[in-house]
């Protein structure tokens, strides 16, 4: 009997402790670096599982014209406010150039007109924001894979890093510049395109004019807008927060397939 009372006390004590923990301690636990590194194991597990369970050429569902969202919500920056961008926008992006450099044999420098002359792909796909909403739109653009192939990737090439014209956060050191990165599996996926058209018209500024990335098996923040330069790299070292993207540097997963 004494034994069971002791045990009962123990149980009540631990229940009370657990209660106190859940009321005051959760945020401390959430901010603990060791806890975070344990939680981050899930991202690697997710990426490995999806890479294993979804073969690299499986396409995201393509929808029909009737399925297109009546309103496609712009997100993130809807009007980059740099002088350079404003000047390019006012001239209809006539002097805008896309540079592809880094670990390539032949760096590329293309105008919007050059891009539009390359073979294109049109796809009606669903855009999933990390917040939870989805919108369906039609995108036309140049498949990234053949473009990278023509630039000639060096053997050390592992990632394509996308630099954008917009600053989502205004900072003096430029760390608010939007950037993103994908690995070569996603870069060479058939639906990964550099899109210059949305819903049959030149992309609007709010949706990333003149050029945005579509990487259809990932969440919205991977689909970088206002592309200026693609750098082929072997790591993210030296890039702002070092996590491979604007939102990744702010705690979001680099692998955004879920």
């Amino acid at each position: 009997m004494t034994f069971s009372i002791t045990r009962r006390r123990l149980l009540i004590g631990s229940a009370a402790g657990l209660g106190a923990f859940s009321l005051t301690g959760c945020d401390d636990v959430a901010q603990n670096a060791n806890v975070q590194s344990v939680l981050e194991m899930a991202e690697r597990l997710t990426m490995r599982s999806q890479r294993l369970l979804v073969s690299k050429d499986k396409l995201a569902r393509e929808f029909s014209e009737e399925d297109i969202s009546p309103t496609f919500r712009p997100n993130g920056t809807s009007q980059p406010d740099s002088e350079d961008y404003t000047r390019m926008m006012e001239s209809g992006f006539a002097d805008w150039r896309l540079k592809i450099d880094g670990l390539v044999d032949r760096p590329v420098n293309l105008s919007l007109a050059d891009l539009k002359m390359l073979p294109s792909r049109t796809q009606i796909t669903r855009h999933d924001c990390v917040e939870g909403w989805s919108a369906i739109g039609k995108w036309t653009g140049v498949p990234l894979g053949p473009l990278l192939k023509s630039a000639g990737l060096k053997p050390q090439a592992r990632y394509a890093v996308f630099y954008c014209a917009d600053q989502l956060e205004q900072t003096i050191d430029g760390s608010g510049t939007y950037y993103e990165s994908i690995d070569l599996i996603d870069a060479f996926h058939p639906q990964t395109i550099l899109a210059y058209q949305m819903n049959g018209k030149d992309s609007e500024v709010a949706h990333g004019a003149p050029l945005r990335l579509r990487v259809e098996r990932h969440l919205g923040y991977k689909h970088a807008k206002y592309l200026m330069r693609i750098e082929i790299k072997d790591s993210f070292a030296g890039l702002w927060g070092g996590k491979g993207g604007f939102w990744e540097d702010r705690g979001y997963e680099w692998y955004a397939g879920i």
Partner: protein
Amino acid sequence: MATIDDHLQPAPNGPLPVVIRRHSLATRLTHWINVVCLSLLLMSGLQIFNAHPSLYWGQYGADADSSWLSVSAMKQDGGARGVLRIGNLQITTTGILGASGTGDDAAERGFPSWITVPSYQDLATGRRWHLFFAWLFVINGTIYALISFFSGHFRRDLAPSGDEISPRHLGREIADHARLRFPKGESARRYNSLQKLAYVAVIFVLLPLMFATGLTMSPGMDAGYPFLLDLFGGRQSARSIHFICAWSIVVFVLVHVAMVILSGLWNNMRSMTTGRYVIETGRSE
């Protein structure tokens, strides 16, 4: 599952208590891991919901599309009014849903801070917790399902017999439950039919639905397994079903915990921790 411990002394006049082994080690361990997983999945899930507190049916859905459920704050004199809208029905939920705090401290917020992980608005951290505990929950559930299938736990303890789900039998059990009369003696060795049906519905319907609708929200998994989109009618439908199932599980847990308390808190807690469960039999005949 019953082995009688013989060292217990019968009470002089009362019923004869018998201690049985009620729950296997696998059931007990996976049960408590599940308690941790489901609690944190709910709290981090509501954090994620708060990032876009509207639900839709179909393949797409965002601000301009019509939602079937939304939680929002409306500006009014002296703060904000929280509103839960389901279809055309609007319910003022200030302080709980839509708006937390009062007066100048009122803040627009879907679910309040005491039920989200972390307490403050932080989608990135909410997702980290949610996806980590989703993995733990799936691994834990898989272990439980494999052991329970091969040990015969499902067949022996959970599958109701034809007789147990006859309307007459169920009617009597519902009446007994309503009067808070719980099984004694031989029948206390087994789960009763309502218990079996509730557990079967959760284990074989609600939890698998949570898992499958969760995967349907993944653009990566949708590419590999597009039938998921057809099964649930689109990603936004899957998100809505995920939300409905989450609250169905909350309702189950509330009833479950109430039954645990009413039918003998200490005995039930001990049986789910050590496995030992006391049943009262009649005087030995």
